[in-house]
């Protein structure tokens, strides 16, 4: 309606003549037939490869737990991550914006290109001289300029600046990216050129055909290169599992995780074919950054290589072909890769899936890993300590038993119950709760949440621990849990859902931040750098609460990698319990980053980070900063009389 009325406003046009796009004169039949033939060839070449990929994806096993609904999340993700390119821009602003302009130009060109081809057959529907046509073409021209500049910039970056993350394993760059960039540039140039020549001229004809031929060569290249993401990634983002680091339930009695090609699901297949090889995952990976074999991009590309060679029905093992067992077990499950990936690839279900395949079948043979599993089987805690040790600690600290009358069940976790430093955190947190008059109690028969077993892929031990704990909590009528350990929080809140309904749980940072105002004021001393634990930040989206606790008594400084870009301490994924690391220690690398802020204190909010940093700091001779949990920082504000328990831990 609007367009029609604008069309009938030639007076306005005459007053502001817009530059018009030159179109060639109508084609003779032979030229139309040639065009039709070329389109068919291009489409056939496209399909010859794309059809194979599509069939591979569809032939993979169905995702047992996939639900299309509710759609709201999917639509939002699609809008935010695809249409707005939010993730692409946020983490790498300049190249991200360049990419976004190329993408938005493609959107703008959808109509232009359809009209372009239709013109060849004599059915052009946009009139370059018409009101809507002239404005739309001009708008497309603006995008074309932005796109041409952007693609030239991206080309320059990839082939001249050469960021290390874009290179392949063997340090080469894919030449086809250059070809594609050239084609996109040519597409834009041939479009813009049509503004500079008269309509119906020979030059207009040449430009028209160049544009068309570029387009028709571009199309078949797409499925042969990483530019397949043009087609697949919108679907990948729309169809993603959702949540963060979501480990899908095992489908049936025959499902042990990712063992062979048969275990690759459709979603995983779709994701591995969508990878655009941008290397953002690897850039942020603590393992790849400390000289380990693991490289999350190569994990994804490894699966793609496997699917290309063996297909989704193959019974060839996955590990030992394109992916290695060593790499799979170097992952700290920090989630940086999954968080960063701009095309919605979920690395953790893949990495944990490969581990499940190796552990659930007994293939993984590791001295420390085996010991950990036996400790969990036999003692119910990851440290393999006698349960009586915990009892003694409860008695010594006068921690009341949970009897159903208290508000909170204080979850000690393995670290809080058995580790000397973990116990100090509990002791401090209990002082704060006592000061606030919050009622709490401790379960006598608490067991490990199963976090290390879950992340290392031991479904048997994880299930036993989760069920045992859930039953215990239900018997004791626990409604609310509070924990000092982000791993416990995540595992109870999310992973246990596979076996029941866990009670509400929160991390002590959330509790402390909420009650901050009721704690005594203190003068601000020193500077503190807060290390975001992976399982509190990326996994739970809690960034500000621990900072507010610290800011009450100290000047907060930020490490270069902080908040959602925080660098792992090296403990997650069960790795705290495994042997020596390949390459540099992740913990030492992180401590270095934290020390370089010049802070006098490192603030931690996870007993595992704490233990890793403590060891890393112990090996330093310079005057290293002190290391405190936020509970200890908060407890320092309390009047000394409310700290009756100053007995030191027996070593």
């Amino acid at each position, binding site marked *: 309606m609007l367009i029609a009325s604008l069309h009938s406003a030639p007076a306005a046009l005459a007053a502001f003549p817009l530059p018009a796009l030159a179109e060639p004169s109508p084609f003779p039949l032979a030229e139309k037939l040639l065009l039709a033939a070329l389109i068919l060839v291009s489409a056939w070449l496209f399909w010859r490869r794309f059809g194979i990929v599509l069939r591979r994806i569809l032939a993979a096993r169905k995702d047992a737990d996939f639900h299309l609904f509710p759609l709201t999340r999917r639509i939002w993700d699609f809008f935010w991550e695809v249409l707005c390119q939010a993730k692409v821009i946020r983490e790498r602003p300049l190249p991200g914006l360049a990419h976004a302009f190329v993408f938005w130009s493609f959107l703008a060109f959808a109509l232009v290109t359809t009209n372009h081809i239709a013109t060849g057959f004599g059915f052009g529907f946009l009139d370059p001289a018409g009101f809507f046509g002239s404005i739309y073409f001009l708008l497309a021209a603006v995008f074309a300029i932005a796109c041409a500049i952007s693609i030239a910039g991206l080309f320059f970056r990839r082939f001249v600046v050469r960021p290390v993350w874009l290179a392949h394993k063997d340090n080469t760059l894919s030449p086809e990216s250059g070809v594609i960039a050239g084609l996109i540039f040519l597409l834009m140039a041939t479009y813009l050129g049509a503004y500079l020549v008269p309509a119906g001229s020979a030059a207009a004809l040449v430009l028209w055909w160049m544009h068309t031929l570029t387009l028709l060569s571009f199309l078949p290249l797409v499925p042969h290169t990483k530019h397949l993401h043009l087609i697949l990634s919108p679907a990948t983002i729309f169809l993603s599992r959702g949540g963060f680091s979501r480990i899908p339930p095992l489908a049936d009695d025959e499902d042990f995780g990712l063992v062979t090609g048969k275990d690759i699901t459709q979603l995983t297949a779709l994701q591995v074919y969508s990878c655009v090889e941008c290397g953002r995952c690897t850039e942020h990976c603590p393992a790849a950054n400390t000289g380990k074999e693991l490289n999350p991009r190569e994990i994804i590309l490894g699966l793609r290589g496997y699917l290309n060679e063996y297909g989704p029905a193959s019974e060839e093992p996955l590990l030992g072909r394109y992916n290695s067992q060593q790499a799979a077990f170097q992952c700290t499950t920090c989630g940086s890769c999954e968080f960063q990936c701009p095309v919605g690839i979920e690395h953790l279900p893949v990495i944990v899936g490969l581990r499940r395949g190796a552990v659930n079948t007994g293939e993984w043979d590791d001295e420390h890993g085996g010991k950990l599993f036996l400790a969990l089987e036999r003692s119910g805690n990851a440290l393999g300590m006698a349960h*009586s040790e915990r009892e003694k600690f409860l008695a010594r600290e006068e921690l009341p038993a949970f009897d159903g009358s208290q508000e909170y069940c204080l979850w000690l976790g393995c670290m809080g119950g058995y580790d000397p430093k973990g116990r100090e955190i509990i002791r401090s947190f209990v002082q704060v709760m006592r000061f606030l008059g919050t009622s709490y109690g401790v379960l006598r028969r608490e067991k490990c949440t199963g976090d290390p077993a879950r992340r290392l892929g031991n479904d048997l031990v994880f299930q036993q621990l989760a069920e045992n704990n859930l039953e215990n909590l239900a018997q004791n009528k626990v409604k609310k849990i509070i924990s000092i350990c982000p791993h416990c929080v995540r595992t109870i809140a999310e992973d246990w859902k596979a076996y029941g309904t866990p009670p509400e749980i929160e991390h002590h940072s959330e509790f402390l931040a909420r009650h901050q105002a009721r704690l005594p004021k203190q003068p601000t001393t020193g500077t503190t750098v807060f290390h975001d634990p992976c399982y509190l930040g990326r996994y739970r989206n809690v960034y500000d609460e621990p900072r507010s606790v610290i800011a009450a008594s100290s000047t907060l400084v930020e490490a270069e990698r902080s908040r959602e870009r925080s660098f792992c301490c090296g403990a997650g994924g069960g790795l705290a319990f495994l042997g020596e690391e390949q390459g540099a220690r992740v913990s030492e690398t992180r401590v270095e980053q934290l020390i370089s802020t010049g802070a006098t204190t490192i603030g931690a909010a996870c007993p595992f980070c704490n233990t890793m940093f403590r060891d890393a700091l112990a090996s330093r001779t310079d005057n290293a900063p002190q290391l405190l949990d936020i509970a200890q920082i908060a407890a320092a504000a309390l009047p000394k009389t409310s700290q009756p328990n100053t007995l030191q831990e027996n070593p």
Partner: protein
Amino acid sequence: MKIIVAIKQVPERDARIRIDSSGKWIALDDIEFRMNESDAYALEEALLLREAHGGEVIVLSAGPERVGQTIREALAKGADRGIHILSDSLASYDALGVARLMAAAIRDEAADLILTGLQSDDLGLGQTGVILAELLAIPHSSLILKIEKTDTGIRVLRELEDGWFQQIEMPTPALLTIQSGNTRLRYATLMGIKKAKTKELRSVEAASLGVDAVPSVTLDSVALPSRQKSTQMLTGSPAEAAAKLVEKLQQEVRVL
């Protein structure tokens, strides 16, 4: 090689122990049970032998219904089948009685090797295995760390006191009691548990084995160890105090 592993289900290591009303045993309600530790090593040895030389591993255990769970755990770790001597009153048998039940249950199996743990974590008698060998009239050796198959039988490594070891060549069939700690135990896996469900677990009523339940040894009473902490002050100059400390550590505590 056909190997039988006799395992025992015992109270979890650091269970909170209470004496039951009879005063003759501990109260078993509210207690979790585990596979006896040295039996777990015996099972591991059997599985390693089977992996190297083929054959069959059969687990044998005696006790009430709940013992089935420990047998299934052994099946999940890789044993091929299980025999459960069902008895709700195993405590009324002594080591001789239990060994007689076991002998009766496995005599027809004609195994090449019978393995048991060195001793149980609860009673710690260390006799059942040895008596079982006598009842079956086969040679035995205790405190075994390593088993190798030879052309004529087996060669075993036996632990003696004070860091001494003994190498023994034995014919088969034979019975060995296994010392803990020499191998790395395998962890239970989901696949193992699933497979275990399809494995044979035969139950035999203890009463049907024709063994007299009248024990030749009777347990009179059990008591919790009384723990005493004592503090001694060592006086004198630092050198004298140190000398006294060394002497005490050598003579009384015997840790040096």
